[in-house]
């Protein structure tokens, strides 16, 4: 397989790596808009941002639990109707809100700095 054929795969791999790193910021941003649960968060991630983030359940759920364990999110279980499994709703904690602000600032700095490598400002 030549280099030309490898390029799309290489670009796809880079995008996956970039997406992984940005998932945390995206999750916190979505929860900043209001309480939400795993399935809904996943659907929002897929629907927004022109589909640049396409995480799987396997990436999102463990990250949500990790953020909660570290105090950036809080959660509650909400039982819906009879026979329907209850849902776990996540929301930002005050510390999570501060983290979101810090990550957003950091992202701006990173993006401005990295534009020099990526080919300049748009």
């Amino acid at each position, binding site marked *: 397989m030549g280099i030309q054929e490898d390029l799309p795969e290489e670009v796809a791999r880079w995008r996956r790596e970039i997406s992984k790193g940005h998932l945390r910021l995206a999750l916190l941003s979505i929860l900043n808009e209001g309480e939400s649960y795993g399935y809904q968060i996943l659907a929002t991630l897929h629907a927004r941002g022109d589909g640049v983030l396409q995480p799987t359940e*396997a990436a999102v759920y463990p990250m949500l*639990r990790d953020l909660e364990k570290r105090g950036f999110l809080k959660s509650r279980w909400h039982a819906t109707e009879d026979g329907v499994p209850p849902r776990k709703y996540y929301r930002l904690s005050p510390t999570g809100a501060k983290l979101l602000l810090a990550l957003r600032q950091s992202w701006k700095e990173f993006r401005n700095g990295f534009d020099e490598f990526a080919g300049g400002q748009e």
Partner: protein
Amino acid sequence: MKEIRDHIDAITRRAAKDASVDPKGEPRRELASHLFDLASNRALGRPVTVDDVDAAWAELAPQAIYLLQEDDGQTKAIALGAASWIPRFAAYVADVAGLIVAAATIIVPLNYIPVVLPERGIVLFVGVMFAGLVFALTAFEVGRGATPGKLLLGLRTVDANGESPSWVRAWIITIPKVFPPLLVADVLLGVLTGLSARRRLTERIVNLSVIQVN
């Protein structure tokens, strides 16, 4: 609706047990909730049926052991929840049987073709043919996430993201299968050195797992 919830509970409890995760814990409950949402999405507004749940589970199952993790998804988690050795051995036997049948299908008709090959040519031909068949098995692993034998037994080979392996990783785990003594050593070393008793050494090295999906 109670039937649906009981069905989901049964599926997710089994998944949690397979993944060596507390079946009463929150990860299993979240998996159940997600499975119901997926099934509802399939039902498109009408009442959810058991078939909807089963179809949603078929989609979700390869990732289930990752959804059930407590941490942020690192290597050790996929050591839990791998398929047991019995279905894996059965899948291996099925693949070997398939290889033999495929080889015979190619070789036997050649006996009737009036071509005289030198001995070395025959050996080379058989070698190339087997290499081609092993390549085909690897291609199944990469393309479908499972060899034909694994597909028959409801097994899948997945990486840390729940996706099918790359070519390089698939080759690495396929090569020991060609030499049974090497395969036995691969299995034993995996069992003796691993956190879980269900991964071969080569699978641990390339970070793949064989999981049961149905």
